[in-house]
């Protein structure tokens, strides 16, 4: 781990020299302070309470390439299956951390759907106002991302606009000789009473080890409605550390879906700040894992202002040697009265070698609140299974049906039809059955 840390620290000097004119801008000051934070804190270890169940050591013991060459041979038909639709979405596509313009469809009409690098050049005022203000810069991995932040998705919706199509953000890594380490940085600013739907995906196209340390900042202004979907179905050697921080103003609604089906190690840090009354945060997650996969969902909902609401529902199914970690924290600040916060985490364990470590936490400093959390771990109901088999449904399919039913609570509310179909197919494949689940 130390070796790779040293490499990153020396890479920062190289990175700084590549920046040319950008060095004097305020955002670069943020990068500099961030690299200092990373230097002092280093990679988190299992001795950190927040990383108690997820050990990053095996991951960062390896060496990764920090700088990559751009890949231009990839064609749309090769990767068609990773997209929701050919033409009905906005697309921001990256390959090895570089923007792939020929695969993307961006826009500047009415709203901006483009890249973080072009925003750094063109929308200096927006970058200065928002970038780095929402993310947790004291966190060492977020700081590491900030210090190298240059490329990623940039979405800026002005007040009163409804984005007509879903926005797809996809990060590809391609097979090279070396292991790849990429650090995308996304910024989403949604203006007053505006609406948008976002689908994010990380996909490794080779067999090499890939680690993405991705940071996303989302600001939902007054009355904004944002739905953000994260599809995690990566190759067996790909790992993802995703940190998403959402700040919500008055009466805004942000719904975040996390679908984890693949990847070697997936860590989702979701943090919501409800800073003005009436904000509503919804967090839904489905994890279906097998093999030696690990998914670690860490969520924090900060009820800073009164009259806010948060709903959290995470479902997990773990097979083979898969490991699941859930750590959900609801923090109600003093004076955040009339808070409603609900949290639920249900898990199915299918083998004795799979394991679950869950830690739902409540930290409450106000008295007029309704907060609850529940957490269960169990198996499929034998009676229900028997019922289905009695009616001629084979064991595997019966199991799959029950498991699908188990997850549906967290699938409800999906608005994009294409996405629903895609997820149904993904779930069916993950449960290795050939059923067309219909929502």
């Amino acid at each position, binding site marked *: 781990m130390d070796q790779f840390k040293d490499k990153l620290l020396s890479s920062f000097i190289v990175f700084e020299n590549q920046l040319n004119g950008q060095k004097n801008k305020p955002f670069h000051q943020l990068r500099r302070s961030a690299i200092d934070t990373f230097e002092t804190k280093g990679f988190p270890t299992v001795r950190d*309470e927040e990383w108690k169940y997820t050990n990053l050591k095996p991951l960062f013991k390896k060496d990764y390439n920090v700088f990559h060459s751009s890949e231009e041979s990839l064609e749309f038909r090769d990767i068609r299956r990773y997209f929701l639709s050919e033409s009905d979405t906005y697309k921001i596509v990256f390959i090895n951390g570089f923007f792939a313009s020929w695969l993307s469809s961006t826009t500047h009409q009415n709203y901006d759907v483009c890249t973080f690098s072009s925003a750094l050049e063109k929308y200096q005022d927006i970058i200065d106002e928002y970038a780095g203000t929402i993310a947790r810069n004291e966190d060492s991995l977020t700081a590491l991302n900030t210090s190298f932040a240059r490329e990623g998705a940039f979405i800026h919706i002005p007040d009163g606009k409804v984005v007509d199509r879903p926005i797809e953000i996809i990060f590809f890594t391609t097979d090279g000789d070396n292991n790849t380490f990429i650090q995308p940085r996304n910024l989403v600013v949604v203006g007053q009473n505006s609406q948008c739907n976002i689908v994010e995906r990380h996909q490794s196209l080779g067999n090499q080890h890939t680690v993405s340390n991705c940071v996303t900042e989302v600001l939902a202004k007054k009355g904004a409605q944002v739905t953000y979907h994260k599809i995690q179905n990566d190759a067996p050697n790909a790992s993802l550390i995703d940190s998403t921080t959402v700040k919500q103003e008055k009466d805004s609604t942000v719904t975040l879906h996390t679908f984890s089906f693949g990847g070697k190690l997936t860590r989702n840090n979701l943090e919501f700040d409800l800073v003005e009354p009436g904000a509503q945060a919804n967090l839904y997650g489905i994890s279906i894992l097998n093999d030696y996969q690990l998914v670690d969902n860490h969520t924090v909902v900060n009820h800073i202002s009164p009259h806010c609401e948060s709903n959290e529902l995470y479902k997990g199914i773990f097979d083979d040697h898969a490991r699941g970690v859930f750590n959900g924290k609801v923090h109600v600040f*003093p*004076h955040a*009265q009339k808070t409603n916060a609900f949290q639920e985490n249900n*898990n199915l*364990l*299918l*083998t*004795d*070698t*799979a*394991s*679950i*470590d*869950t*830690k*739902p*936490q*409540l*930290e*409450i*400093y*106000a*008295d*007029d*609140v*309704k*907060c*609850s*959390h*529940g*957490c*269960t*771990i*169990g*198996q499929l109901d034998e009676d229900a299974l028997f019922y289905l088999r009695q009616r001629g449904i084979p064991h595997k399919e019966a199991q799959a049906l029950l498991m699908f039913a188990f997850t549906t609570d967290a699938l409800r509310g999906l608005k994009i039809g294409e996405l629903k179909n895609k997820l149904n197919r993904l779930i069916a494949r993950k449960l290795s059955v050939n059923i067309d689940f219909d929502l």
Partner: protein
Amino acid sequence: MDILDKVTRSDYKYGFYTKVDSDRAPKGLNEDIIRMISAKKQEPEWMLEWRLEAFEQWKKMTEPEWAHVKYKKPNYQDITYYSAPKKKKSLDSLDEVDPELLKTFEKLGISLDEQKRLSGVAVDVVVDSVSVKTTFRKKLAEMGIIFCSISDAIREYPEMVKKYIGTVVPRGDNFFAALNSAVFTDGSFCYIPKGVRCPMELSTYFRINEAGTGQFERTLLIADEGSYVSYLEGCTAPMRDENQLHAAVVELIALDNAEIKYSTVQNWYPGDKEGVGGVFNFVTKRGICERNAKISWTQVETGSAVTWKYPSCILKGDNSIGEFYSVAVTNNYQQADTGTKMIHLGRNTKSTIISKGICAGKSEGSYRGLVKIGPRAQNARNFSQCDSLLMGDACGSHTFPYIEIKNKSAKVEHEATTSKIGEDQLFYCNQRGIPTEEAIALIVNGYCKDVLNQLPMEFAVEAQKLLEVSLEGSVG
């Protein structure tokens, strides 16, 4: 609001100090002190070695900081580790107990006179560092039950102590357990022979009397195959401006088919309304269950400035059962980080956790619990429920459950809620002519009923009163 304020503002009734001649060791902690304690207790050589090894381990450890409590760490060299009321040679009859001490206990409502006891409760009384009196010892001995102070046990039943001490809470388990292992001065020892159902409640009463001392007691309770015992523990301390340290270790051993019921009503001095003084209660309690055994912890925590306590069960044997019932009340500036650990190792093991927290004033209460199901624990079952009741807008209530499952046949449920007393419930009571204060007491008692029901009868009444007293003036 006024009523609430009044309800949480009652005084600590047990805050008096009794002047008795005491025999004290100099302040500080080093090998000589440990040798002195051991010598005073006329302990065998192995016990001294055991203590010194624990001390070596302790020196290498650091004080834990993970708990959700803030306090000024005690200076471990500024504590008197041994303080005992001066006593005459032997204490066979009550006449030889210092009359001042007897008065103290009368004031606390505990009679040491066997004749005067109405109910069948045998008491071992520990003041500061030593046990002053154990009642009903002879009567219990007729049934083969050994109930005495741990110092007596080390002298009289060394094999048994040697066999079991430190087996459930090893010396290096944590900072406070290591400290306790090095300097523990007294505590209770109890052995219930095979197949015996202990006819009376056994109980230990702890009192810190002297200033500048810490209390380090050690309790070892062994229930042999098929036996049953119900054990009670109570505690108080005088009101002082300084923070006194109480670091105890309790080890329970339930052999095959045995059942142990361990109840605590903890009422150490909680500090004054400004949060000055009070006892630091850092306790390690743990029990081990062999086949078909059952351990049940019930605790009512109302005292202490800072509580750090996790009575746990290691469910080692198949079909063993662990239970944890807790009511933790914090008021003013009290802080409590308490909960349990249920470690399922055997097959068909079951555990239940019911934790009720009540926070008032500027206090903070946390539930911190671990439910761990090992890979071999087939069909393990756990149910946890942790509720918190908030009274007033300046207090904090937290829940930190850890759930670690490594077996697919496990069924684990965890539930937690946090809320305040329902206004409609209060209104309903008011409407029927019940004053707000009484209504709150009623609602709180109802809220804690699940736990209070687990307490032995006399204790339940006491606990109920205690709840009312600790919450007096906190309604809001």
